[in-house]
């Protein structure tokens, strides 16, 4: 009886398949050769618990919890050095976004500050259609670094004095339209 040899796509399963499916574009995540040019290039690589290279190895190994608990994706500054230098042209930065979103959904990342910053930002965007720096800074710091708030005050005041910060948020006119779009997108995202 002839046995079919599984196609490459069928061979990817488990956590790797999950991360790949959640990342748009031709991201080539399964092509990593573990060379480390990403970790070497990363401006915040020294502070990461795992370099992107190690994260990819862990993803392949199916170490879901370790990956989603890692601080690494949150320390990604979106500088894209790893992406343009990757000899396999893996869209590394895009995978980091995927891992962050998955970590939030799974609730696995322990330090809530970076995720909190992102979520606070998203809240403002979803409420007003625009970001709101004063609100973002205050609310984020109140929740995550209450002690830092005082330290940040000179900066905030400086911003206000130089006309670089608004006291009230701006709401776009098409808020209902934007909400409908985002709601539909989120429903589709959840369905996949």
């Amino acid at each position, binding site marked *: 009886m002839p046995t079919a040899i599984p196609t490459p796509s069928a061979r990817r399963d488990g956590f790797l398949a999950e991360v790949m499916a959640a990342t748009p574009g031709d991201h080539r995540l399964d092509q990593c050769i573990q060379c480390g040019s990403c970790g070497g290039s990363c401006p915040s690589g020294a502070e990461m618990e795992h370099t992107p290279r190690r994260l990819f190895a862990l993803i392949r190994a199916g170490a879901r919890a370790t990956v989603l608990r890692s601080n690494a994706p949150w320390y990604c*500054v979106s500088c894209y050095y790893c992406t*343009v230098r990757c000899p396999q042209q893996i869209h590394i930065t895009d995978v980091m976004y995927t891992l962050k979103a998955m970590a939030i959904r799974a609730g696995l990342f322990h330090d809530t500050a970076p*995720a909190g910053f992102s979520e606070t*930002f998203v809240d403002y965007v979803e409420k007003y259609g625009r970001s709101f720096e004063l609100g973002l800074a205050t609310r984020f710091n109140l929740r995550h670094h209450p002690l830092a708030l005082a330290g940040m005050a000179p900066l905030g005041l400086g911003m206000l004095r130089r*006309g670089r910060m608004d006291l009230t948020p701006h709401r776009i006119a098409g808020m209902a339209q934007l909400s409908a779009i985002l709601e539909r997108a989120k429903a589709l995202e959840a369905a*996949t």
Partner: protein
Amino acid sequence: MKAMFFPGCSMQRNARAYLDSLQAIRADIGLDLTEIEDWNCCGATEYLSVHRIAAHALVGRNLALARAQAGDTDVLTAGCSACYLNLAKTDAQMREDARLRATVDDALAAGGLAYRAGSLKVRHLLDVVCHDIGYERVKASVTRPLHGLRVAAYYGCQVVRPDYDRRWDSSELPTAMDRLMRALGAEPVDWALKTQCCGGHMTVIGPEVAFGLIRRLVRGALDAGADLVATLCPMCQLNLDAYQVEMNRHYRSDYHLPVLYFTQLMGLAFGRSPGELGIGREFVDAMPALARIQAEPPQVAEARRKRRPRPGDALPMPRRE
């Protein structure tokens, strides 16, 4: 040159100087910008970190609005690096990923909108200025050349990387802004950090990492002999300027390196007043550096590397071309 324009949240507030100076110089270089009506936030790097796919729908709304309002231009430009990249990324990934395209199409339809990927050319403002308007056109508008001003052209990350549409000569050491500075009469300094990270959101979530990066950039630019940094991104400006003060506090150092937008320098060279260009909104005062502008070009000996010293001297450097 006509283009749709996406200002983005930062340009409206913390980077008002960027927007003001852009408004001031548009007419000088024949740049006809139409702001997208009722645009929404691009999501920065944060929305993508929370809702991986919906983030593209968020950007998709801007693309759809821009396309519908664009009329006879197909260029959409943004001044903020993150805004530019998010718009370009959504367009590029919709082009290459049918599944994403279907999702975004579906979501946009829920808002009565539609966008065909690739129907707009998403371009950063610097790209439009350098490659469409062109250095010659810029040079023609210069009335007060910035002679003697040594500028570190700083590109940051997201304009030249990942560069979906191959707009730049290099993702590591681009030269477009350097050439623009030369067109303004300023002298771009030779430095290798021009696309190194400013720290991004790490200033908020992990300041120590960010301070290290900011210090390296500030010191690198000063070591290269720069009087000031020219930037093209609100986030870079904020981190290098406002957080320079915080960084000094962290390292107990005392660097003073002003950071201006390239549009502000263009405005100065075009003879506009500092006030009109938002100069004064920066934390590190730019006026002392700007005072170094001279009436005449300085007589610098052309420090051209000679490839032909006599044998016995140093080994020749590789050709640079």
